């Protein structure tokens, strides 16, 4: 069996709209090629309207018109169920959903039906894919909740009776109860407070290790990636601009955008002036020619304005799309100054 569970090749997915006579095309995902290994946490970072959410929609096989795949393939190598979700039928996708491919969504309230007890929601989601019913099913769910350090009592509760952190743990439970091979986590901790966020992150990390699943973790917060991801991919204006092992991305970035994202994170114990990146993310409806980052890039040369930089391998598992990657300097030193720890 190949080491890659997901292989995305030349994926283009656009929103094609006919807005009362006005044709519009938004190239939300424009030529992304990447792969995700088994038993890996892959972090995807990007700003709002960078196309990361659209990319995730394709990975989760949740495209809805007017959003559609225009070119490329998204191949999953599930055990006994290889599938290309870019072209698969609804029925084929239904067969792998939850059992092989599942997702943890941002707002736990939108996943949990407010008028159904948690236990019922578990039945709705998982009974069919697991092929269990009655007591056997219940035992399986309780055993799984135990791993998430949730008591069986939550099955009798309604969503509103639980705290935000508990609810998010329940949604993680829903997403993992069928032991999927691939989990997509879309901003699962964005709405949570810092203390709870850390707990939930470590929970996701633990359960991933235990089950040996692959996780795609999407968030705009680089400090979250620093702590959960094995590799991080940066999406800018619909394109993957850099991907690499987390540590290298933070301390030896090879794309000026990554360098800026990392450098703009303030740290406790460090009051040195932080640089700010000027300009604004481009519109996906009319992205700039050449490298899409060039209008904001401090290193931009004429070539960047006209020619699209190809993905180049710059290290083990490390690729970047920048004409001047050799000149990219990390803007923060690995050990600038540690705060006094307590």
């Amino acid at each position, binding site marked *: 069996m190949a080491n890659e569970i997901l292989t995305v090749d030349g994926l283009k997915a656009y929103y094609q*709209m*006919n*807005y*009362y*006579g*006005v044709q519009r095309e938004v190239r939300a995902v424009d030529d992304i090629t990447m792969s995700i290994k088994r038993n890996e946490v892959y972090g995807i970072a990007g700003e709002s309207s960078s196309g990361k959410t659209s990319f995730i929609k394709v990975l989760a096989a949740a495209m809805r*018109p*007017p959003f559609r795949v225009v070119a490329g393939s998204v191949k999953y190598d599930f055990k006994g169920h290889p599938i290309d979700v870019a072209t698969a039928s609804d029925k084929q996708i239904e067969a792998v959903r939850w059992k092989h491919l599942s997702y943890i969504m941002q707002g736990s309230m939108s996943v949990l039906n407010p008028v159904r007890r948690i236990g019922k929601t578990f039945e709705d989601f998982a009974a069919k894919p697991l092929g269990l019913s009655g007591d056997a099913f219940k035992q399986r769910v309780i055993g799984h909740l135990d791993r998430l350090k949730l008591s069986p009592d939550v099955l009798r509760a309604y969503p509103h009776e639980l705290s935000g952190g508990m609810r998010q743990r329940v949604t993680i439970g829903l997403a993992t109860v069928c032991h999927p091979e691939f989990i997509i986590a879309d901003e699962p901790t964005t709405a949570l407070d810092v203390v709870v966020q850390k707990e939930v992150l470590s929970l996701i990390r633990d359960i991933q290790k235990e089950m040996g699943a692959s996780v795609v973790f999407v968030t705009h917060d680089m400090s979250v990636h620093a702590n959960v991801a094995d590799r991080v991919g940066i999406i800018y204006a619909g394109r993957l601009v850099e991907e690499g092992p987390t540590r290298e991305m933070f301390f030896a970035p090879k794309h000026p955008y990554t360098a800026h994202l990392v450098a703009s994170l303030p740290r406790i114990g460090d009051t040195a002036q932080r640089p700010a990146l000027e300009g604004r993310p481009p519109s996906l409806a009319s992205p700039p020619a050449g490298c899409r980052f060039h209008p904001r890039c401090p290193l931009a040369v004429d070539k960047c304005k006209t020619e699209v930089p190809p993905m180049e391998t710059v290290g083990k598992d490390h690729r970047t799309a920048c004409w001047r990657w050799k000149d990219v300097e990390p803007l923060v030193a690995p050990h600038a100054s540690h705060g006094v720890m307590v």
Partner: protein
Amino acid sequence: MFAVFRDLIRYNLEFTIGLILVGFVVIFAALSFFSPVDPTLIYMTIPDQPPSGQYWFGTNSRGQDLFWQLSAAFKNSLIFGITVAVLSRIISIAVGLLSGYAGGWVDRVLMFINDIFVAVPIFPILVLFYFVLRNSLDSFTLALIMACFGWPFDARLIRSVALGLKHREFTRHAVFAGMSTSKVLLEEHLPYVMPIVFATFMNNMLWSIGLEVTMAVLGFTNLNNPTIGTVLYWANSHSAMMVGVWWWILIPVVLIVITFIGLFLLAMSMNEYIDPRSRLRRMGA
């Protein structure tokens, strides 16, 4: 605005049909401005003539040319409907926006009044007005009275939108930019409720014209003023069907149905245009 209109015609069949039907009725009603006869006078032509080249819609038992009679009737009824709709929209916007934004006791008092108007049965009240005012109950007075009853449901609808707008950050921002309450309501919030106002405008016209027809057929309005309702009243009182003057009933009924379907289709397609979910469905596939 014009582009939206053009796109609606091109992509929304209901809107196009509605527009054609209503347009047809409006042009017909507008012809009354060029009428060669005064529609309030009787025995101006030979009575009971069937539709012909000379009398397109025939003549009735009161010696009136039905074409010009109905043209005037539709003009009066449409003006009546628009008057009621405009007046009641003004009340519902004022009450709804203020109630939602001010909250507290203002909201409670206004909604108490609102609920009284919802609960009061309108038909007996209109009949009562007729008995008190008799012949001084002209079209405009009736429109005023009906406008006073035509606002409460829509005011509630507008209030619910205003309640949501009140808590949006831009409202607080506007307050701290020194805008007065009336400025916030009229310039910040009104654009958000205009879609509701347009959609309910058509519905309100349907309601008021329908009610006027009911009143007139029963003889509770000024019968000398030609409206859709009074035309039917006179037809009924001359037993038009019994004596074989079928065109006196049939033609106005067909025209009313055209008007109502037209207005209904316009209201529906506007609603759909306003609601982005259904717009997406239409574009989808």
